[in-house]
């Protein structure tokens, strides 16, 4: 399985993602530029955290119009895996690949800490290596991670089991404690926490490993 790590102007977690999947998980992976128009050589796309286009206008709003996003949309429509963390999640909502949007944290504080999450749905191709309702610890680092959607959308998310991760304590004001969701088909996942920063116990947690292990195991089979 070969991953593309998309680099936007302002991405700053791209190297962490590449290091996580390539150096630690042993998958093939390489950087691709936001100007790329062809992702056919890849089996999975990873959108990193950071501040694409300086977060001007709204987080992710301008990145959504970069060349690569047309191709990411096509890629997603083919049922191939797309994962966005933090700013990557914001880009996926702005692009309409995931429902809802991310607002400024209710406290207005930029929050940078390790948080406890519940794996609400371990029956996805991104989370199958976790146990259902397992509590894991991943770091967050965001100012605009307050997930918002209207009641109708929330009802759909619940009915389709698209809510994958919930904060144990609601740290940023998110609707229904939502930390991560998938699209209806289950091949696009966005989350505010950073699994790629929780890969070694030396750095505080290695709970992110099973996330990438799930992706490689499940999607690797589908596409290889």
């Amino acid at each position: 399985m070969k991953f593309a790590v998309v680099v936007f102007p302002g991405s700053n977690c791209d190297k962490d993602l590449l290091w996580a999947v390539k150096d630690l998980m042993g998958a093939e992976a390489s950087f691709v530029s936001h100007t790329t128009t062809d992702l056919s050589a890849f089996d999975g796309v990873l959108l990193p955290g950071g501040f694409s286009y300086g977060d001007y206008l709204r987080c992710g709003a301008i990145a959504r119009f970069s060349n690569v996003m047309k191709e990411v949309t096509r890629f997603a429509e083919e049922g191939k895996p797309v994962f966005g963390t933090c700013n990557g999640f914001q880009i996926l909502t702005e692009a309409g690949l995931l429902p809802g949007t991310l607002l400024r944290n209710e406290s207005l504080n930029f929050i940078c800490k390790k948080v406890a999450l519940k794996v609400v749905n371990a029956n996805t191709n991104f989370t199958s290596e976790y146990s259902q309702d397992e509590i894991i610890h991943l770091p967050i680092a965001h100012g605009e991670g307050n997930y918002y959607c209207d009641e109708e959308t929330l009802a759909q998310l619940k009915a389709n089991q698209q809510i994958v991760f919930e904060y144990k304590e609601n740290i940023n004001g998110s609707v229904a404690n939502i930390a991560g969701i998938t699209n209806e088909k289950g091949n696009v996942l966005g989350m505010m926490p950073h699994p790629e920063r929780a890969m070694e116990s030396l750095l505080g947690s290695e709970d992110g490993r099973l996330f990438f292990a799930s992706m490689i195991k499940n999607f690797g089979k589908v596409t290889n």
Partner: protein
Amino acid sequence: MYFVKVFVTYKPSVLDPQGEAVKGAIHQLGYESIQDVRIGKYFELKVQSSQEPVETVVEALCDQLLANVNMETYRYEIIEMEEEA
């Protein structure tokens, strides 16, 4: 040529934490009469006359880029200008 002012704000149902913080500061200044503060974005556009009505262009732009209609609403004012020489 048109001069267009676009105002984008959160929908009334969406909490505006920046507005709440500024309201707190206003109250600290003693202006208790200020009941509510909402913070939004303001855009100034110069739009050349074309076959498409200017309202259509501005609304398309707001829906696609200037506002995220999941959480924001927008309104705009259109002022007709004399063509620049």
